[in-house]
């Protein structure tokens, strides 16, 4: 049976791609951010996941407003990254786990979720950069992937509680998957930031820290808030924390903290990093 070994949560910002490409890990601006990752690398060497299920949001690479899914699940043999228009290097393709993907999709539909199934799917920086941060080695990513994309672009966005339930259903489907796999769930995006409008530059340190803490001890805490409230508290793009909630929903109620980091700012974003283990 497949086992979930833990959850990894991290912000994503295109500029991280440029910093990696230019080896700026020790640059004073970037060091406090990149210094968060060595403990994560050590943990990954211990838990040795085979597969990662990645909850993320697309930024207009694979999806446009002509067909904007609330939830989309990749079911492709391979996922390609591509030019997003802001000049960061394109990363090599990722191997999929399509049988597992289909099992998730079947169980989601059975539990009255209405996912889009994607047998071809471009993955953007929200997917690729967290993987590169977690597995920085040259070449292809050493785990097989299942992308789960949540709409954070076009309102109405799915409610926080719905994203959490989506994660719960994903977690149950993984646990029922009859193959001896070690699975890590990943949530990317946030934390507080706002790129657009007169409130651009908005950051809410208190909320971010409370949210990160809640994922360890009170995982449904943030589901009390409406989407509008989350935008108010975290910014128009801070709402990407929905991806963290989805991933957290897939984990058991009790987890233990492996590592956390929080740094303001990279670009306009409060960068969070959290890793939790299930003991598997």
């Amino acid at each position, binding site marked *: 049976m497949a086992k979930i070994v833990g959850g990894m949560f991290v912000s994503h910002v295109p*500029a991280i791609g440029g910093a990696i490409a230019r080896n700026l890990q020790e640059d004073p601006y970037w060091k406090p951010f990149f210094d968060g990752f060595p403990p994560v690398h050590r943990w990954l060497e211990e838990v040795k996941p085979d597969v990662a299920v990645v909850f993320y949001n697309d*930024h*207009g*690479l694979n999806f*446009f*407003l002509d067909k904007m899914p609330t939830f989309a699940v990749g079911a492709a043999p391979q996922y390609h990254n*591509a*030019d*997003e*228009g*802001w*000049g960061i290097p394109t990363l090599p393709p990722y191997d999929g786990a399509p049988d597992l993907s289909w099992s998730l999709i079947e169980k989601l539909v059975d539990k009255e979720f209405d996912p889009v199934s994607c047998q071809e799917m471009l993955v953007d920086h929200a997917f690729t950069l967290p993987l590169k941060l977690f597995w920085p080695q040259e070449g292809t990513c050493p785990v097989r992937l299942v992308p789960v994309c949540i709409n954070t*672009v*076009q*309102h*109405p966005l799915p409610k926080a509680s719905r994203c959490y339930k989506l994660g719960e259903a994903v977690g149950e489907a993984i646990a029922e998957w009859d193959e001896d796999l070690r699975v890590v769930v990943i949530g990317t995006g946030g934390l507080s930031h*706002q*790129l*657009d*409008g*007169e*409130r*651009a*530059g*908005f*950051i809410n*340190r*208190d909320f971010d820290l409370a949210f990160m803490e809640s994922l360890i001890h009170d995982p449904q805490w943030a589901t009390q808030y409406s989407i*509008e*409230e989350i*935008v*108010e508290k975290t*910014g*128009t*793009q801070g709402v990407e924390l929905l991806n963290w909630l989805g991933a957290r929903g897939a984990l058991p109620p009790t987890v233990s903290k492996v590592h956390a980091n929080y*740094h*303001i*700012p990279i*670009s*306009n974003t*409060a960068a969070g990093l959290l890793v939790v283990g299930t003991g598997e």
Partner: protein
Amino acid sequence: MAATAAKRQIPGTTLFDGDMAQKGYALNKMCFSFNHADNRAEFVRDEAAYCARYGLNAEQAEAIRSRDVLGLLAAGGNVYYLAKLAGILGLDVQDLGAAQTGMSKDAFKAMLLAHAKEN
């Protein structure tokens, strides 16, 4: 009639909902095309012609011409797509932030840093 129910007011913030999406479709579709280098080059070659081809309205075309970030948002632009336009123009998100808040870029960056010191 507005497509959406009475909305929560968040200062300096507009949710990209169905009303905004209807308004901005052509503009956002143009920005989505900027995933391709050829399209970016063509936009640079003749901005006005490229805008016309995507059917931008006068408000949108003028906001492009004058690099008016708040104007692009008011005209229905979504920041996830507008960011691709910003890339062409060589603007980073701090340039955008400065433009929208009326700060200098240095002041905007200092404001971001100040959040790290809160409490």
